[in-house]
């Protein structure tokens, strides 16, 4: 069983397909869960303490917006854990009220420079593309140890 990071790191489709094929999907909600459900809440309601931006400093410089560093405090450790990656091309709904394009760029860069096997895909727009999408993911995951 390999630890596979999916991009977008909140993707239901990609994380489900990874888990279906018997691997471990590395996703952001797990990192969020550790913070928001910890028994020893330091900083309610979300338990984001001054330690989080410090963790983010490992991946982004101090002059980078705090939003990027804060997000990287959650996503960065997941990238370090990853043994493989599946990256779906930005379908256009990853930025907005809760997204950050600069973080997305940094996440993709860190995954690619990590040197783990990466599968690049686009979200399907029709049935034929969906079949190829699923088949490519199956073949990629079967090739992992």
């Amino acid at each position: 069983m390999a630890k596979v990071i999916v991009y977008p790191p909140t993707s239901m489709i990609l994380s489900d397909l990874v888990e279906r094929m018997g691997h471990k999907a590395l996703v952001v909600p797990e990192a969020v869960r550790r913070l928001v459900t910890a028994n020893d809440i330091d900083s309610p309601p979300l338990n984001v303490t001054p330690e989080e931006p410090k963790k983010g400093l490992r991946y982004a410089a101090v002059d980078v917006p705090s939003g990027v560093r804060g997000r990287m405090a959650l996503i960065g450790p997941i990238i370090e854990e990853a043994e493989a990656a599946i990256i779906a091309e930005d379908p256009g709904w990853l930025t907005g009220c809760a997204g950050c394009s600069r973080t997305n760029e940094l996440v993709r860069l860190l995954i690619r420079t990590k040197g783990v096997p990466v599968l690049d895909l686009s979200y399907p727009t029709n049935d034929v593309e969906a079949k190829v999408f699923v088949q490519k993911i199956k073949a990629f995951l079967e090739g992992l140890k």
Partner: protein
Amino acid sequence: MMLVTKYVITSSESNILPSDIAMKIYGSKYEVNVKETCFGVVINGEEEVINALIKEIRALDPAGIFIKDRGFPPGDPRRCRGRRGGGARPGFYMIESESKMLPMISRALAWEGDIPAIPEKKKPLPIKRLEEIVKEGLS
């Protein structure tokens, strides 16, 4: 023991309704919290119990039921829209966007035939060819 929360999301073409999943969980031996939503259910419980339960839920419709992790427990006042004055919670938009693709993904998962080749997308007319057409038209 760590408590985990998962979304169980059904494809819009699946014959399984969120209420069917909720009833299955109520009738099971597992001690978990269930919240029924419009797109599926949210389940919360101990990790091992949830993993075992997910296998049973998936068996209802292997290609039409999808599972996603969630950070906050169901009904958490920090995310529940009832406590925040309405509006979709952050993260719903991602589920909404991906839910539209679920019927396609379900059909692809259930597909057992050969994988068809994707037809090449039509490329724009090269400028040289356009020039030739214009010249032919003018001559």
